[in-house]
């Protein structure tokens, strides 16, 4: 019914006790006097006392009232009761845009921002008059109007307000604004008011624009301080085989004061690990768990973090992981120095602890290529030429989801490799550099860090590797399935990828032995080879088992979704940009909305629909002062 623009002034109401305090402080204890007869005094009392008492208490009351009303006036009260010119109101069209993205579930002072927004929205609805029309649009990534047309049915509006709950989607403010503007187009009322109830996260309102003729009133529900723990991701090795110890890396973000949150990992509803993580305020951290999957198949699980936190929904992160048979890799070579050339590759793929790789080495003698079939990854290490039969066999392997890694060397027939074979991601042209001249070398200076095989590396990872020789390669840049993943400092490509059906081909333009480079001697050789092999072996990577609740999936809830019977699931997770909780300050939002019709100065929720009655109160104070003066003067005369 009432709200205040300056509620701090309400503390002044305590001053209402001042007249009472003065009264009690100045009240003297009556002296006792023996008097001949109080007969006439009694008559006086009977006649005058009641009036005097009434006057006295009236004065006291007036003085208290004057102070209370004055303080109340300073607090600038607003009311929807329509004291002032309620009959003069013009018909208004009101749209309430209420953010129900999951960040509005942040708890501030015991209640969620969403509930606070709903309470404020209710005040607006209660102020709607019979000539007005209104609608409520709940919005997250996409907006949804509650009524097809405007209504002035407060009950219906309030019911909608109460019924709607938070979503698990992120915010896209402009989408909601656009829908509101479109709806305002249907209204003929001269006044158009758009209230936006939101926490105004930067991610959701960066592209916010106003519209002509519409007063936009942002209603902020931002908490004064943010405290949030988020599980930002769960990372598995690219290839997981059963009975091998698998490293599971959980990434956490702490935007609050909690320093030692606990993270627990659940697999198929069973807790398989829990640990306390030393995580400083406003930092990111990692918790590592190890687990050996008992058998192959798709496993569902989630990671949950616990600690002092005001937004719980992002504390859980779901994942699906496919555990497969050990990875079958075939290493082919037809060079006379095959032993030497295969040495480092064999060492790399065998030596890793708990490696899921089963490596088989074969000297290519143009035999029956049906032997290639069971291998997920085939490494063509300095193979001189790829004839049609081999090419067909390899393509079949690719089509069934296999991967091929091709390395170049002195043994290759450049004519063969630079032909029109669909197998090669690029056409090798000529050899650059010389293995004899080790003083002149090339470095890997660029690589695609977002690519699965490079995700574990830093930008400096390959700076110590020296490449003395490699083949230049001609890449078809127009082919969408082909891309360069790493390159040398002279701009020549080092690793080129081509997707072929379900399969993938990686071409290394240098050799993977120590003749053309010292790369095999460097620490990153082994992980790169592993990452490449795992990547090539995966028909679907982990990303494909993850679905973020955005776009067409914005209405879904976090958890799991069955994509193929009987047990092929994907994990559904929140769009984590909504968890960042970076808010636009009020003045920035007002600046953004400072269009022709926007109400950039007013941030108050209710100032428009409620009338400020300070002036009425001040007039009342003035009237009461006059009364007080009259009564006290009359009293003074009476005393005289």
């Amino acid at each position, binding site marked *: 019914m009432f709200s205040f623009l300056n509620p701090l002034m309400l503390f002044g109401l305590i001053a209402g006790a001042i007249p009472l305090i003065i009264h009690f402080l100045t009240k003297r204890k*009556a002296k006792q006097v*023996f008097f*001949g007869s109080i*007969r*006439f*005094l009694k008559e006086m*009392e009977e006649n005058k006392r009641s009036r*005097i008492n009434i006057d006295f208490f009236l004065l006291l009351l007036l003085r208290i009232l004057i102070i209370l009303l004055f303080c109340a006036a300073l607090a600038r009260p607003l009311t929807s009761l329509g004291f002032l010119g309620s009959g003069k109101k013009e018909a208004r069209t009101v749209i309430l845009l209420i953010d129900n993205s999951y960040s509005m579930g942040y708890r501030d002072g015991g209640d969620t921002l969403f509930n606070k927004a709903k309470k404020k929205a209710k005040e607006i609805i209660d102020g709607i008059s019979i000539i007005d029309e209104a609608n409520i649009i709940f919005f997250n990534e996409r907006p949804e109007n509650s009524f097809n047309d405007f209504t002035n049915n407060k009950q219906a509006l309030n019911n909608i307000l109460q019924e709607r709950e938070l979503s698990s989607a992120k915010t896209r403010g402009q989408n909601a604004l656009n829908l509101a503007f479109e709806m305002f187009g249907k209204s003929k009322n001269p006044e158009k008011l758009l209230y936006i109830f939101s926490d105004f996260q930067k991610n959701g309102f960066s592209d916010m624009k106003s519209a002509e003729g519409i007063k936009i009133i942002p209603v902020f529900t931002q908490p004064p301080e943010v405290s949030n723990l988020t599980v930002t991701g769960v990372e598995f090795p690219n290839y997981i085989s059963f009975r091998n110890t698998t490293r599971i890396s959980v990434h956490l973000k702490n935007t609050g004061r909690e320093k030692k949150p606990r993270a627990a990992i659940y697999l198929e509803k069973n807790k398989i690990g829990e640990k306390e993580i030393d995580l400083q305020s406003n930092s990111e951290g990692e918790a590592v768990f190890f687990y050996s999957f008992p058998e192959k198949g798709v496993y569902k699980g989630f990671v949950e973090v616990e600690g002092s936190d005001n937004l719980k929904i992002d504390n859980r992160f779901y994942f699906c992981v496919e555990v497969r048979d050990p990875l079958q890799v075939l290493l082919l070579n037809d060079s006379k120095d095959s032993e030497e050339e295969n040495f480092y590759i064999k060492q790399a793929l065998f030596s890793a602890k708990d490696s899921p790789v089963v490596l088989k080495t074969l000297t290519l003698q143009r035999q029956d290529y049906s032997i290639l079939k069971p291998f997920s990854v085939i490494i063509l290490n300095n193979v001189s030429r790829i004839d049609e039969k081999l090419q067909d066999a390899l393509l079949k392997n690719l089509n069934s989801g296999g991967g091929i890694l091709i390395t170049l060397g002195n043994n290759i027939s450049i004519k063969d490799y630079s032909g029109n074979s669909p197998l090669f991601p690029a056409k090798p042209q000529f050899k650059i550099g010389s293995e004899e001249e080790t003083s002149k070398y090339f470095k890997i200076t660029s690589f695609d860090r977002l690519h699965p095989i490079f995700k574990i590396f830093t930008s400096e990872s390959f700076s110590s590797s020296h490449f003395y020789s490699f083949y230049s390669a001609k890449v078809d840049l127009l082919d969408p399935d082909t891309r360069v993943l790493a390159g040398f400092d002279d701009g020549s490509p080092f690793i080129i990828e081509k997707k072929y059906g379900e399969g993938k081909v990686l071409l290394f333009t240098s050799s993977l032995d120590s003749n053309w480079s010292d790369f095999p001697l460097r620490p990153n050789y082994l992980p790169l080879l592993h990452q490449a092999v795992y990547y090539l072996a995966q028909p679907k990577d982990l990303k494909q088992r993850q679905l973020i609740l955005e776009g067409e999936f914005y209405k879904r809830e976090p958890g799991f979704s069955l994509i193929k019977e009987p047990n092929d699931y994907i994990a559904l997770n929140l769009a984590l940009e909504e968890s960042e909780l970076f808010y636009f300050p009020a003045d920035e939002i007002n600046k953004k909305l400072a269009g022709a019709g926007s109400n950039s100065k007013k941030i108050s929720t209710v100032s428009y629909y409620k009338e400020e009655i300070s002036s009425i109160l001040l007039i009342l104070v003035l009237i009461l002062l006059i009364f007080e003066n009259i009564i006290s003067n009359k009293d003074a005369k009476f005393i005289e």
Partner: protein
Amino acid sequence: MSDYKKYLDPQVVAKISNLELVARLVVEGFVAGMHKSPYRGFNVEFAEHRQYNPGDEIRYIDWRVWGKRDKYYVKQFEEETNLKCHIILDKSASMGYSSGNVSKLMYGVYLTSALSYLMLNQRDSVGLTTFDKDIRTYLPPRGQPAYLKEILNSLSNIKPEEKTDLSFVLHRMADKIKRRALIIVISDFMDDTNRVIAGMKHLRHKKHEVIVFHLMDPQEKEFNFNDPMEFVDMESNEVLKTDPNRIRAAYRQRIEEFIKDFKYHCGGAAIDYSLLLTSTPFDIALSNYLAKRRTRIK
């Protein structure tokens, strides 16, 4: 002011403990202040001769004149008024009120003493009745000078106590006094006015002359209290809490009305009324008495 005149001031008299002395000093002060005596003297003094008429008492024949003139002449004296006076003094608790040195009762006692002294010296008979809710002392009128001591003795033991029932007392006195007399009522009249007036009319009905000395403390009239006070009724012990500032004007007005009303009713019943504040010099009361006596004699 001569030495005697100062004794007309109640404040001065209050310092003297001997009532007889007070009475004498007051009366002498009063007499000294008069320019011309309204009477020929205070003692039993010769006034004039007249020829004896049959029926005159033989004891008043002046035998000396008969010896010289051989005619019978009778002596006429001042004191021949044969006045009998009843002083009725209120000794109720309310009479004990005093805002200064002299309470209403003390003032009444001094006044009674002075009047008695004056009367006895004029060979008038004077009696004393004290009362509160009933008659407490009754001394019938006597004319002997020695009777003063008895009156003064009675006055010296007087204490303010009990409630007033003046009308009851007046009716009783009216019934009690058979012969015509001068009745002097000294009271604060803190009683029901109508009933009091009825009592006094009863006295008048019995052909008595009545003089009323209405005693009042200056504070009772002016009500110059300032702070809020608890007033305790001296008769009923009833307590009333009030702020004098707020009721002073109305109180004064009411008191004036009361006095005016009382005076009016007294006038209506041919009763002499005098308002005497306890600060009022005694000569006013004595003058009133003498004026009344004169009319009585004429």
